[in-house]
């Protein structure tokens, strides 16, 4: 045991040898620290991606403990529900009761199941109400819990009214309320996963919300094609096509801007899901447009679009896990930042007065 007493008021009785300079033997004229950092740096610069140092190749981050299908399902269902609420409100307002019915029911089902998935993934599910213990704008999960707490009852009343035809005024108000919260329900999960140190999620934080609402629109439109009567499907079809376009464009933009931390989006499990998502989305969109006069073709296309949306969420989820489990994605971008002389200071890079703006690092905006 140490003889010294290190208290809040300072050290008492510190050891005289405490200041030993391990590794340095000045008396002999020999010195420690003969390593030349310059050479090591030059070596790194030549092959920046392959050559990085780590602690036995072990991950730096503790990877998320979130599991599939709970969390990717939660992301997918939230998107489906949120976008369906907006679509349902539009359908109700434009006199399409069939589409209004299917969309509001999808919104309620998606919202409820999304909540169930979130609670099921908790380490202490019985304590799920602790989510409503505080309101924290710095925690997207807190914001989301409050959103869902307000949204799900509204979606329930809207769906009940649309299905039974009762209480039309209350139903209209609830439909409007759910449609007002729906876009937030569809998009907050993007902030939720981006607000982590997981490289593939955090570095995509600018585009992720657009990917998520695009994916939500794809799912809501697709579900309309599956469940609504053919003659009321036109807005669902248009929304699905818009959603596919937005989703594919945002993913592409995100991968290009991110650089190396986007690798997991095209490799491994994450890459496979995202490739499947692209194929399903394009096939679904094409089928939805070409088969618009055929009930079965529309339903099949709709199912493909819903599956595409789910595959996107599964792909993003797994890509995040991959990027957290490989120290490369943590070390290399940070090391690069340091070597280029633009370390992550607390200074926000968007402030006009900053001197770092011209060399602003990718993934730091």
């Amino acid at each position, binding site marked *: 045991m140490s003889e010294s007493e290190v208290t*809040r008021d300072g050290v008492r009785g510190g050891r005289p040898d405490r200041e030993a300079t391990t590794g340095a*033997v000045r008396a002999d004229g020999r010195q*420690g620290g003969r390593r030349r950092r310059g050479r090591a740096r030059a070596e790194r610069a030549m092959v920046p991606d392959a050559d990085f140092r780590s602690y*036995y190749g072990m991950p730096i981050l*503790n990877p998320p403990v979130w599991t599939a299908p709970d969390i990717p399902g939660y992301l997918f269902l939230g998107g489906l529900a949120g976008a369906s609420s907006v679509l349902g409100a539009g359908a109700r307002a434009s006199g399409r009761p069939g589409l209004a019915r299917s969309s509001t029911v999808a919104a309620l089902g998606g919202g409820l199941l999304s909540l169930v998935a979130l609670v099921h993934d908790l380490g202490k599910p019985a*304590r799920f109400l602790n989510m409503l213990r505080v309101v924290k704008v710095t925690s997207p999960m807190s914001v989301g819990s409050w959103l869902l707490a307000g949204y799900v009852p509204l979606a329930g009343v809207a769906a009940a009214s649309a299905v039974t035809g009762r209480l039309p005024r209350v139903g209209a108000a609830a439909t409007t309320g759910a449609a007002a919260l729906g876009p937030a329900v569809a998009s907050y999960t993007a902030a939720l996963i981006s607000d*982590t140190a997981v490289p593939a999620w955090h570095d995509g934080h600018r585009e992720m919300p657009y990917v998520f609402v695009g994916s939500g629109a794809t799912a809501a439109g697709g579900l309309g094609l599956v469940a609504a009567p053919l*003659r009321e499907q036109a807005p669902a079809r*248009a929304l699905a096509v818009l959603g596919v376009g937005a989703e594919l464009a945002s993913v592409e933009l995100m991968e290009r801007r991110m650089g190396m931390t986007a690798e997991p989006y095209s490799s491994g499990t994450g890459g496979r899901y995202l490739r499947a998502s692209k194929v399903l989305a394009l096939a679904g969109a094409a089928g939805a447009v070409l088969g618009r006069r055929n009930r079965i073709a529309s339903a099949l296309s709709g199912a493909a679009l819903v599956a595409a949306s789910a595959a996107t969420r599964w792909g993003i989820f797994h890509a995040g896990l991959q990027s957290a489990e490989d120290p490369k994605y943590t070390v290399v971008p940070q090391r690069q930042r340091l070597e280029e002389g633009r370390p992550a200071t607390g200074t926000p890079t968007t402030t006009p007065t900053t001197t770092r703006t011209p060399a602003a690092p990718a993934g730091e905006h």
Partner: protein
Amino acid sequence: MTAEPQLRHALSGDADPAALGGHGDGTGGHPPRMGFFTDTSVCIGCKACEVACKEWNAIPADFPDGGFPGTSMDNSQGLGADTWRHVAFVEQRRPLGGQDPGLPRADPTQHDLGHLDVLSLAGQGSSSAPAHIPASPAEPGAAGDFRWLMSSDVCKHCTHAACLDVCPTGSLFRTEFGTVVVQEDICNGCGYCIPACPYGVIDQRKDDGRAWKCTLCYDRLGVGAEPACAKACPTDSIQFGPLEELRERADARLARLHDTGITEARLYGRDPDDGVGGDGAFFLLLDEPEVYGLPPDPVVTTRDLPRMWKHVGMAALSLVGGVAAAFASTIVTGGRRR
């Protein structure tokens, strides 16, 4: 615009974390910020800190998956729910220079130790150097081509702690000492704090579901005692104290090491302007941080949160716009019948 600079100050840069956490009156009125300075240059890898931490905090045993991992002498592998102090062992083919025990030199020609009374030497103990000792430990060793880096890792108690920021239940909180502690009676195991931590510190205890990490011995601090790991450290590699004082001590130590030619010594987490606003527990390292399993340039993820919310808002609006466009397109094409 008036709220934004305040928000930025709350999310990044140098700050008084206890005051941000609501302690005191904003200009003080709370105890000084306490922390650790872990000087790895004198760590001997004894793992007394790991053991003391486990004992004091009643942390359950944990074994690495698949038995002994063979990563030098490291069998705890990294920080997690059941490892709040972790000693890293790094073996390097790199010249170190001889070890200087700091004892008076003997005549190098005198190697006959037959007359030595080892019992009386043992009676003297090892903490004070005898006036003259001809035994070989007093001889400086030759410079080898092997060095062993050891470092006791711990929760950094960041100035801007992502785990605390993202916790949806308020289970994680900022103490009056500026440290970050989990309230286990509130944690519902949502797991958000785990990927939020840029250092990989906090983790979920599998059979319990909740998140656990170093408390900087909040219970001991409350009665004026130093944390268990610092108390147990035989070389004072782990030093505990007011952060201001630790920073001064670390600067002096670094200057001394640089003077003696150990140019690769560097402080890690000491700078209040780094990506997390400085660490409450910072380190003196003898190689790059990633060699010890530490991120070279960590950033608190919530620094970018205002921008994330902005994009979330814009995306939400574009969803409304997209649905409106979808309905508008049906009017243009007369698509109601299709």
